[in-house]
């Protein structure tokens, strides 16, 4: 009798194990099935005669890039897990339990959302409430399975090491961040990339056709070429010369091959003139190439100045002198002021005529020195526009740089400097031989963060310059809002992303920055 009851208990336990393993297997196969149907659907359209671009575009629109990868990975993982679970592996059981818990949370959220939309849409009652009911059943099943594994954990074999259980714990901690990053950052990025392969237009009617154009947008955006142009010859065969004595060159589009005209290349700058030839640099989208130049210039100069000033300010804040607290507070004020405010403030300060406060100051100095008064139109000329941008950014973000560097400075023990004093090293030697090398890791990190921010600069350029000159980000914005070319604007976004990525890789290589 004893024997039969244990046997019954064992079979019933086995039933539950089979059921849970079956559930896992079902979910895994389901995920794989979604993955496969995505592909077969695309293949069927291809077989039906649709051209390759259209099929690819359709697949990407329906499935995206990330989702199939998640389906594939999750499907294989769940099937493997189900097999290990069947073998009564404790470690697999712990992970199954973990997944069930997440499943419970997810299905609860799903039920709440479905209920919300059911109440909002006022569909026919039965239809609207079917989905929440299914959700509730799912949630209850998963909860039961979760609780069952918890109370029967001794039925499983093997041992979970401390490292394994803490890995599980760590994943629990990361789930919220993972969800936010995947759904609000990576998913839009993926959509941007897909859109960049099309000629989609913003706010086009529903019937507007979206075509797959491959990398055409990128070709147009990044199309640059260098050409040698021969001078215009006069009757004698020598180079013609105009009144001012400069050699006359024909317009590039008149003499170069047809693609130059057909692809709408335009001249950006002349690189060098040698004898009767000159080297010209042209681009298909001169504004974008110009915006890359502006942004790189802005980034390199402003970050360098910010680094130097930042080290100075951080060292001042870190040393002891009367009024130090006051100065620290004062130095950080620009950081606390919203960028739009500081940008606006500086447009007033830099105004072209003598009503601009900077020009008023310059005029005052000129007056006292007896020089003729001269106002500079800071925001009217291209060269000074970029200088103004750099000045605003330096004013605004140097405090942030200083704060990061300060954290590094405070980790340097004071007795190193005392030892250096005893050895007779002066302040400058101490700075170059001690502070800078010891601060190097912090400098590297600060540089990375500031550079990546500067490459993405938007608000200063948009508020102060609008469309007079572009940064990469404002160009991206204006291509979208002005010409409504969603596909093209998306390509701009992807190119910016790739440039930032290249910057990061370069930094990682050169400065040896690594994620801890």
């Amino acid at each position: 009798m004893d024997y039969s009851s244990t046997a019954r208990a064992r079979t019933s336990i086995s039933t539950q194990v089979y059921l849970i393993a079956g559930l896992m297997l079902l979910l895994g196969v389901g995920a794989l099935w979604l993955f496969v149907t995505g592909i077969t659907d695309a293949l069927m359209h291809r077989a039906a005669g649709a051209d390759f671009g259209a099929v690819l575009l359709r697949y990407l629109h329906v499935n995206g890039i990330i989702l199939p990868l998640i389906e594939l990975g999750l499907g294989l993982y769940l099937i493997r897990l189900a097999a290990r679970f069947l073998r009564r592996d404790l470690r697999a059981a712990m992970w199954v339990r973990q997944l069930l818990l997440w499943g419970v949370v997810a299905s609860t959220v799903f039920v709440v959302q479905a209920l919300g939309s059911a109440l909002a849409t006022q569909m026919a009652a039965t239809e609207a409430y079917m989905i929440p009911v299914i959700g509730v059943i799912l949630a209850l099943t998963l909860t039961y399975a979760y609780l069952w594994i918890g109370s029967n954990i001794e039925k499983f074999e093997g041992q979970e090491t401390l490292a394994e259980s803490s890995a599980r714990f760590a994943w629990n901690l990361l789930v919220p961040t993972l969800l936010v990053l995947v759904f609000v950052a990576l998913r839009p990025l993926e959509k941007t990339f897909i859109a960049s392969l099309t000629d989609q237009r913003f706010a086009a009617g529903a019937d507007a056709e979206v075509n797959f154009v491959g990398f055409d947008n990128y070709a147009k955006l990044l199309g640059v070429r260098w050409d040698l142009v021969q001078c215009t010859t006069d009757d004698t065969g020598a180079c013609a010369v105009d009144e001012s004595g400069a050699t006359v060159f024909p317009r590039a589009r008149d003499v170069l091959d047809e693609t130059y005209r057909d692809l709408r290349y335009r001249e950006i700058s002349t690189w060098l003139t040698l004898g009767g030839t000159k080297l010209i640099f042209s681009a298909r989208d001169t504004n974008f190439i110009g915006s890359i130049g502006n942004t790189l210039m802005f980034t390199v100069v402003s970050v360098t100045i910010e680094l130097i000033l930042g080290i100075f300010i951080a060292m001042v804040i870190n040393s002891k002198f009367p009024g130090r607290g006051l100065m620290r507070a004062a130095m950080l004020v620009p950081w606390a002021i919203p960028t739009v405010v500081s940008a606006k403030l500086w447009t007033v300060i830099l105004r072209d005529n003598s009503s601009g406060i900077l020009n008023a100051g310059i005029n005052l100095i000129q007056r006292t020195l007896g020089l003729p008064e001269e106002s500079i139109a800071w925001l009217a000329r291209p060269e000074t526009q970029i200088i103004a941008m750099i000045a605003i950014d330096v004013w605004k973000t140097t405090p942030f740089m200083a704060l990061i560097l300060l954290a590094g400075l405070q980790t340097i023990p004071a007795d190193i400097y005392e030892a250096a004093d005893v050895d007779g090293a002066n302040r400058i030697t101490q700075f170059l031989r001690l502070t800078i090398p010891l601060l190097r890791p912090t400098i590297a990190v600060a540089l990375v963060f500031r550079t990546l921010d500067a490459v993405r600069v938007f608000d200063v350029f948009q508020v102060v310059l609008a469309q007079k000159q572009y940064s990469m980000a404002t160009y991206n914005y204006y291509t979208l809002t002005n010409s409504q070319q969603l596909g093209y604007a998306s390509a701009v976004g992807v190119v910016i992303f790739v440039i930032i990525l290249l910057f990061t890789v370069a930094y990682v290589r050169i400065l040896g920055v690594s994620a801890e």
Partner: protein
Amino acid sequence: MSAFAAHSLEADLALKAQARRRKMIAGFGFFVLVVTSTIAVVYPFYWMVMASFTPEGYSLTNAPLLLPDRFSVEAYQSVFAERPLMTWLGNTIAVTLGGTAIVLPAALLASYGLNRFRFRGRMVFIFLVLLCQLLPASALIVPIFLIFRDYKLIDTTLGVTIAFTTFMLPMAIWVLWGYIQTIPHEFEEAAMVDGCNGLQAFIRVTLPLAMPGIAATALFIFLEGWNHYLLAFVLTSDTQQWVISLGLYSFIGQYVIEIEQMMATSVIAAFPALVVFAIMQRYLRGGLSLGGLKG
């Protein structure tokens, strides 16, 4: 012998005097540098406040450098009368506080998990965070706009808050990581030996010790939220849903006549951020350490 000693004493004194003089000059130079750089940093801000208190139209023609000879609060009266400033401020506070409330717990858990545990997939996750840190907001505005339109989040404070969250989360993780790293993990181990589970050890031991770092991160997120511009610009068109930075932007095109009003709005926009900053800035005493990355 004695003459030699006297001479050396004299020389010694002279040397000391010279050293003292040099130190004084260095001190004076240091002082001048500190004062000039402080003025350079603070003066534009001072000018903004001053110009906001002049009668309308005054700063356009007079451009006072230090003190205007006429004061007025009419700029403040007119901006409050003409524009929904209080609504904008309310929206900004909602976005900023809401964003902080979402970002802070998520970033805290993530940075703790990444800092304390070694597990498979950790490097992939760190890479993912770094990748999201690199995303230019301008590249994402289109899909975010389209996705948010599907979820009816356009022209809502919630939408702006969610979008803001995404861009703050990676940065908050790095900042918090730096602080969590300074807490010895032996404390948590001791708590676990005493019978706490992982979560309890985190809540009871790590969390209280990390409070200054959490405060600094919260301040950081708050300031960034107050700063926040591009996404709000794209996601809201209804002026009732604007944040204050967008309100300021609306002065574009009219700035020739309304410097005082613009400056008054700037002062109002900067004021809450400065108050919060003044209260919380002591938590930044040790600087912002971005511990997740090492040079």
